[in-house]
């Protein structure tokens, strides 16, 4: 690989691994294009935007359009303006967090930057915390509900498995917004669920579910259930069920066979499914906004409000950067699971 040192851009270097059977020049060129085109697109529209978010999280809020003072506009400008970077937005988050955990020593520090209002009434840090536990509980509930479904599908006669698979995927093709919206009509005090429960005499007074955490749990579990079922199904389907027979022949009770054989073997599916639910759920906006009411805090909603209602782009950028840092570990776990699945499929 001596020639890779010559090229500077990773995208160009990317293409230098020769395609397996390209003897011709044309083949080599198309081989390069296959890598370079999507590579450049993702660099420009996925990676560079993150750099910009980070940059803007370090700039000052301004009442203008766009509502921030540019830290620097080009690389030549960079050196001259390096002093203009401000940690203000992160200081706000720090004071907010210190206020939440009651870090009394931090109050004077926040006061010196006139940020004691964040210390006294934190609203960003609580949103992070509640997002993580709401997403965590929802992920656990989704796993609990999805596992029997996936297991049932994996044990179904092979002839109907494709149909079952299609039926799991189908709701995913209908709009997310519509599926969340459908729950409003079911969960509201005079909604269908309460009508049924009242009519059957199970309850006397309508349940208050809409605009509570319960509604958010239902919304997340419902919307993300296919994401949990599919990876579980694919690992359960591959399983060798004669192992269970062997265990039972040797006198192992079914429940203990499940925990000792089935569950460990389905672990890759469990990990992938949990990550596919947990990560987007932490940053979820639509579900808490429509089902959770005004008092539920979730970070996706906070970021949205900071950005659209308060028009504070630098602070919302800082919120996004911290959210990304929180999610980086689960994202890495997801990436590894994907890479391993890819290796196995080879």
């Amino acid at each position: 690989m001596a020639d890779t040192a010559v090229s500077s851009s990773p995208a160009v270097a990317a293409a230098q691994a020769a395609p397996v059977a390209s003897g011709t020049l044309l083949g080599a060129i198309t081989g390069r294009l296959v890598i370079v085109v999507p590579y450049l697109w993702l660099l420009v529209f996925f990676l560079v935007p993150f750099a910009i978010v980070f940059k803007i999280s370090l700039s000052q809020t301004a009442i203008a359009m766009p509502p921030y003072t540019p830290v620097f506009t080009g690389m030549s400008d960079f050196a001259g303006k390096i002093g203009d970077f401000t940690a203000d937005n992160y200081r706000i988050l720090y004071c907010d967090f210190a206020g939440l955990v009651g870090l009394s020593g931090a109050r004077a520090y926040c006061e010196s930057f006139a940020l004691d209002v964040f210390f006294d009434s934190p609203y960003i840090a609580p949103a992070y915390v509640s997002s993580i536990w709401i997403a965590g509980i929802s992920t656990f509930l989704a796993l609990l509900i999805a596992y029997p479904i996936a297991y049932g599908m994996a044990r179904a006669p092979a002839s109907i498995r494709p149909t079952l698979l299609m039926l799991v995927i189908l709701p995913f093709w209908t709009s997310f917004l519509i599926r969340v919206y459908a729950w409003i009509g079911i969960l509201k005090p005079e909604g269908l669920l309460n009508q049924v429960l009242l009519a059957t005499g199970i309850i006397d007074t309508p349940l208050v579910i809409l605009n509570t955490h319960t509604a958010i749990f239902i919304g997340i579990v419902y919307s993300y259930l296919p994401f949990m079922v599919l990876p579980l199904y694919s690992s359960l389907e591959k399983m060798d069920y004669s192992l269970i027979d062997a265990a039972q022949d040797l006198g192992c009770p079914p429940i203990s066979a499940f925990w000792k054989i089935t569950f460990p073997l389905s672990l890759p599916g469990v990990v992938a499914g949990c990550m596919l639910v947990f990560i987007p759920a932490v940053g979820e906006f639509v579900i808490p906004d429509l089902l959770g009411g005004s008092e539920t805090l979730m970070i996706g909603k906070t970021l949205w409000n900071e950005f659209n209602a308060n028009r504070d782009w630098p602070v919302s950028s800082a919120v996004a950067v911290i959210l990304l840092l929180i999610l980086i570990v689960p994202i890495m776990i997801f990436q590894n699971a994907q890479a391993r699945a890819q290796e196995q499929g080879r």
Partner: protein
Amino acid sequence: MSGNWTRFNIVSIVLGFAFLYLPIVLLVVFSFNESRLVTVWGGFSTKWYVSLFNNQGLMDAAWVTIRVGFISATVATVLGTLAALALTRYTRFRGRILFSGMVFAPLVMPEVITGLSLLLLFVAIGLDRGFFTVTLAHITFSMCFVAVVVQSRLMTFDRSLEEAAMDLGAPPVKTFFQITLPVILPAIVSGWMLAFTLSLDDLVIASFTSGPGATTLPMKIYSQVRLGVTPEINAACTLLIAIVAVGVIIASVANKRREVQRARDEQAAQRG
């Protein structure tokens, strides 16, 4: 015992599917409700569909959404297929880890982050927010979904077919179009459909990256939903579900027909 489909398996599947489908069914049923109250049945009526088609704002938004979906799905399918080829065919190239990271990360990235970062990019390079920027944003996240769908098909693809074609002197590009493409075409088609529905569906990223004059249908629906549940929105949602359902059914019927044809061809080949 095991090897059987137990009663527990059947019950959990039935309950699971009831949970998945009941809300959608109820939504569709109540779009035909005479009463303005969404949750009280007042008789069958299609009047909400009539008022829907007279709602110019919704119709305009639907047209914007369809155009954005069509363009973004098409470009995303090309880019996503290239990305899938790059990931499966080129196992060693510099920056491959970064590349596969950039393909997989958008699948789980919270939409608020993607939306915010793309908006800041468009502001930084001075692109006016509107139709063009939403389309760019949709291409970016949906190409990754296309890449995953096509990649899973490519991994089960029998490479010896390609090698045979090239041994017989077909150049790589011709081999791709005559051998590889027809085989992976079903995956590319479902990738396109997935990209189209994702675009049709997206609220958060569109809200960040769209501008005046390019309000998409989910944005319109969202702003009305916040004011309360109305039968007209139920009707709009039902139409969207119907469009998607028809698309999926056509695709699966076509797929089935192709499989039957293939099985027949194979039999004929064996007999001959």
